[in-house]
């Protein structure tokens, strides 16, 4: 809802300034490009090392997704402390901040997921040329890395889940302080952990739970359920942000 009627009959707008705020948040996260540059250099180095001195039969690029998820979580953690006070002081509502920040997170996650998919394209080309099987270690929405649309969707869901969990953690620290923030890390991480376990059988809850969670679910459910959970996570972010007082910044 973007507008409500106040008790004096005014139409109260809740959102404005979304486009410049969205751009500002993206600009403030330009370091994410640097992360990708480093990631590409590191994986190029590992691939060169293996080509020169070793051998492999697994997909190396599959392991890169761990660092992309972790970095998206860091982007999420920093959102509220870094941008909320600045933007409210610049005359924005908290709702506007959450709307623009959600769009910025989605953009970063989508861009990052495109690069993940592109990485698999490059890896498949190199592995095919060198007759390397490129076995996947984890469960995925896709059976092999040529299903680029599923590679993209899986990466997008995972990165968004980590980013929203991060945003919840950052907001809890900002709103409730360090002590209660630490206590709330665990519940805030449920979104990332369960999405990971559901899609990749990840080890957050141990391999047994990871394997059991989502077992036998149709593919569409493995997409729709995490997407719905991310949407709920964003609603919680919004609710937490609306009540957050803007504290003095230490400069």
């Amino acid at each position, binding site marked *: 809802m973007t507008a409500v009627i106040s008790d004096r009959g005014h139409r109260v707008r809740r959102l*404005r*300034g979304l486009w*410049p*705020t969205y751009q500002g948040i993206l600009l403030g996260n330009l370091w994410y490009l640097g992360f990708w540059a480093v990631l590409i250099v590191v994986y190029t180095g590992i691939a060169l090392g293996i080509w020169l001195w070793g051998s492999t039969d697994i997909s190396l690029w599959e392991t890169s997704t761990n660092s992309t998820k972790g970095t998206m979580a860091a982007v999420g953690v920093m959102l509220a402390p870094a941008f909320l006070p600045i933007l409210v002081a610049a*005359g*924005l*509502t908290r709702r506007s901040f959450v709307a623009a920040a959600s769009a910025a997170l989605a953009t970063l996650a989508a861009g990052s997921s495109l690069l993940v998919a592109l990485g698999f394209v490059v890896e498949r080309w190199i592995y095919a040329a060198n007759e390397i099987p490129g076995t996947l270690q984890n469960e995925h929405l896709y059976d092999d890395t040529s299903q680029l649309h599923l590679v993209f969707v899986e990466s997008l869901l995972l990165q968004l889940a980590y980013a929203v969990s991060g945003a919840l953690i950052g907001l809890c620290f900002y709103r409730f302080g360090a002590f209660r923030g630490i206590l709330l890390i665990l519940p805030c991480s449920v979104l990332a952990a369960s999405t990971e376990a559901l899609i990749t059988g990840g080890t957050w809850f141990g391999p047994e739970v990871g394997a059991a969670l989502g077992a036998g679910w149709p593919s569409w459910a493995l997409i729709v359920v995490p997407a719905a959970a991310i949407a709920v996570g964003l609603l919680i972010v919004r609710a937490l942000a609306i009540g957050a*007082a803007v504290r003095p910044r230490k400069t």
Partner: protein
Amino acid sequence: MNPSFEEPNNVVEVDDLRVSYGDVTALEGVSLTLEANKIYGLIGRNGSGKTSLMSVLAAFRRPDSGQVRVEGRDPYEDAELASRICLIRESGDLPTAKVRQILSMIARLRPDWDEALAQRLLARFKVPADRNVMKLSRGMKSALGCVIGLASRAPLTMFDESYLGMDAPARYIFIEELLADYVEHPRTFIVSTHLIEEFARLFEEILIIDKGRLIVHDTVDTLRERGVALSGPAEIVDRFALGLEVLGEHTLGRTKQITVYCHPGDDLRRQAKAAGLELGALPLQDLFVHLTTREDAP
């Protein structure tokens, strides 16, 4: 200014406001009304509740109880109203970016932004536009806050000790520019300061907050009249002081000086003169000190 907004005479209405931080009560029972297009001085000791009051007006936080209205509306999460309220805090609310980038972002969020004024003020304060804000001195950061506050042209603009770190010439420039811009574009300013005498020439009205309560809201002229220093022989001063609100007293030998808080009408002045007492005006800063250090102060 946005023509869709009516221009109410009272820009701020606060009724029985209470703000607390855990067990600490920052504001209690504060009620006030501020008329549009005036410059208000907000003074109080450290921790008296000045920042809390301005934070609530700027929708930086919700009050615990009581009602706050800006332009007749609750400012909290009102997108249009938020763009018309600007609070510049001494702690600064500046991102880690170049000055030029910060101004560019704020210009897109503030509907009444004056870019020419911003550039002129940057030059006057000698703030380099291409420098990262983290590399600015404390005084330059404060000056940048003042630039943003003035160039935003928000109908309700508040400066919370925004001059900290600025040297005397920079503070004088700030006062001069604020007055000049106010004359050309009248709007409501609330300026919180500890430099009472230096900033007093800005103010039309003064609000004094002490221990979370509003203890004085008067025009500067009235307030100046209220603070009176009487001096003379101790016994005459003591007799004269009966029935007056004595804020403080000093004795030197047989001479005594008392500070009283009253409306010194002609009769009091005549009586004081007839009694052989010297009657002097009390500087605002001294009056403030007396009002906020009384034992029985609320």
